[in-house]
């Protein structure tokens, strides 16, 4: 990759930039924004896996849940945490089922 215009369109670079600016932001922002940024990053990772054709239907469902969870934060923080638990459970199941 030679010129910088190319790198700006690179999804990995976009994620990198998001992670670095989030790291700085989390120093000053409300605590709950930490999980929010991590979820956003997780959703972007699944998008990358999708583009690289390394995706499974379970992960696509997980991405939808993650995006719904992000939307919920502004309305209901308790529900947000419940959804995080639900996402964690799904992840546990995905790992368990792939270990068989």
């Amino acid at each position, binding site marked *: 990759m030679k010129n910088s215009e190319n790198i700006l369109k690179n999804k990995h670079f976009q994620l990198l*930039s998001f992670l670095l*600016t*989030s790291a700085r*932001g989390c120093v000053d*922002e409300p605590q709950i924004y930490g999980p929010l940024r991590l979820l956003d990053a997780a959703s972007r990772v699944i998008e990358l896996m999708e583009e690289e054709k390394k995706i499974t239907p379970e992960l696509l469902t997980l991405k939808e849940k993650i995006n719904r969870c992000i939307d919920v934060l*502004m*309305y209901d923080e308790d529900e947000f945490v419940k959804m995080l638990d639900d996402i964690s459970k799904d992840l546990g199941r995905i790992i368990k089922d792939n270990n068989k």
Partner: protein
Amino acid sequence: MELMGIIKGRRAVRKFADKEIPRENLVKILEAAIWAPSGSNTQSWEFILVTEKENIEKIKLISPGLFGNPKALVIVCINTERAKKGGREGIEMAKMDIAMASQNMMLMAHSLSIGSCPIVSFNKVALKELLDIPDSIDPKLILIFGYPEKWPRAPGRRPLKEVVHIEKFGEHIEE
């Protein structure tokens, strides 16, 4: 639309349709900004309008709290040199001034069926570097604009009877 309808109907919009905002509407939005009140009429504000897609994409890279694909951004800044005219409280006052200018812009936008969202979660150091913003200018808020894909539902509000105090603190309004 009557004023209360515009005030209550404005939402933080984070998903936008793929439709350009006419230039004259952006000018109207910016005009609404400069007619906000400011302490001692100091007007210690500067507004950077960004509409080029490529530039918006660059700003998105350094703004973790900026969601969706807005068609225009207004970066609302404090001119700290001018704010000094407001005395020791100058910067505090300038923050109030830009908040009022920002609300004017968002309400004007809503009256034109344009959605908006204030964004504070962006990296100031990187933004200043990216847009050649001088040291004396402090970018405080990014307002994003676009036609909403759909208007989101309203997050709750603390009720009047909780936040309003009558004559002295702690005496609440009857509903």
